[in-house]
């Protein structure tokens, strides 16, 4: 377990910034305690200082997970956000997409969101912008990347993909073994 280097921090913040923009400050600088990022076995964890002090006592081989896993670094040092970060992305999300009840299940199975399943989308969403996907009852379902900007969404045909799937809460059941 070690803190992130400058380059790694930059990569992680860039990725997070695609979904929550400048609200990362609220994650870094919290009024209710000191929270920090730590790297353990290529996975980035977000945890409070109290928890860090306790976790520091556990030997490296026995330590499985600590705090909240935000994602992992791949072999080529790219950062991949995982669904376990959703609890921290959803409240600070800048661009949101609401999905109709009919195609909620499709999204939770790992499929992309089609125009026919699109309920609402935040105004001014650019193409390839990171978005958080909600159900119509404002329950966060996951996150993804907008395949079309808001303007284009209005014009495109019903079978076109509007949001690329990246992570959804169904992964908690599907990838139970590999999530930490």
């Amino acid at each position, binding site marked *: 377990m*070690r803190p992130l280097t400058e380059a790694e921090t930059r990569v992680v913040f860039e990725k997070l910034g695609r979904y929550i923009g400048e609200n990362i400050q609220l994650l870094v600088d919290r009024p209710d305690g000191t929270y920090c990022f730590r790297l353990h076995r290529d996975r980035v964890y977000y945890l409070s200082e109290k928890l860090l002090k306790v976790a520091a006592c556990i030997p490296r081989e026995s330590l499985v997970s600590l705090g909240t896993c935000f994602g992992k670094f791949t072999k080529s040092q790219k950062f991949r956000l995982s669904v376990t970060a959703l609890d921290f992305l959803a409240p600070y999300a800048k661009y949101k997409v609401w999905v109709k009840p009919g195609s909620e299940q499709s999204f939770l199975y790992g499929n992309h969101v089609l125009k026919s399943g699109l309920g609402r989308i935040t105004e001014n969403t650019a193409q390839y912008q990171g978005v958080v996907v909600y159900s119509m009852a404002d329950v966060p379902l996951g996150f993804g990347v907008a395949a079309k900007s808001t303007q284009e969404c209005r014009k495109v045909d019903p079978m076109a993909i509007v949001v690329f799937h990246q992570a959804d809460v169904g992964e908690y059941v599907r990838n139970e073994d590999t999530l930490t």
Partner: protein
Amino acid sequence: MAAVRVEEVLAAAEEQEAEKRRSVTVEKELELEFDLGNLLALDRNPPAAAGLRGAGPRRETVLRALARDNTQLLVAQLWDLPAERAGGAGGPLVAQLPEPTFRLPREKPPPRPRPPTRWEQFARLKGIRKRKRTSLVWDEQAKEWRRRWGYRRAGGDPARAWLAEVPEGADPEEDQFARLRREKQERVARNELNRLRNLARAHRAGTAVPAVPLHPTGHQSREELGHVARVARVSTASLGRFQPRLPKESAEPPSRSSGKKRRFEPLLGNLAAERSRQLELLRDMGSKKPVLDITRAVNKQLRQEEAEAAAAKGKKQSRRGKRGRRQ
């Protein structure tokens, strides 16, 4: 009685004044040479030979007086230098020393070159000279220029050699691949042994022979020169703390492990500092965003066009409606 006392007091005071003035002025036959950059004063006056002969308290007093006089002259020169108050109005008066002119000699003798290795001795004896090899070799099979060794070498990948001929007079049951591998390992081990032996010989012969030769040879690689520069920087009395940087040297102090091992921040280090560093990083990242976002501009344009289209449609419908009603 009182008058006599007063006279005595006055006389004593006058004597003291004269003493002070005398102590400040120093008479010398030859002027001293000063190098104020090194705080050096060179006295070329021949000393009183009688005073210096033989050890003892007399010699001590003579030497002490000499030292005091020369120091007085040196300090008088220092007072002539341009000075300023360091650290504001109430700080100490600091003189600005000029550049040193006197070249100080080496403290220790220069390092000796390392003794020649066994091969070097043999080569010198036989008159064998080093021949520079070409980096590329013509590969007849592949019909192109390939490296002499390394990735995609001429002569094929040795790991993929599927054929190993049994030489004449060798045991037919012997595993040729194993033999080749073993022989290579032996060659490598022998090479390493000889290298270590040469190092040990050099270490025994010289006082402290560095791994990389510190005196300039004509053929030193860039890394070697960098290493030498680093060693030279640290080889001062203050271990390089006050050494000015070379023109193109990086401005940070060299890490203690300038080798391959990576060093990370401590796990439970100063969390407040970490937080402030991250906020700085966020601020830097935020400020670099481009002022003109092309996609937003395109979207804005699209929206304008849509609005215009909608307005035109509305006008058409209203006009049609009016015409219809009139009919």
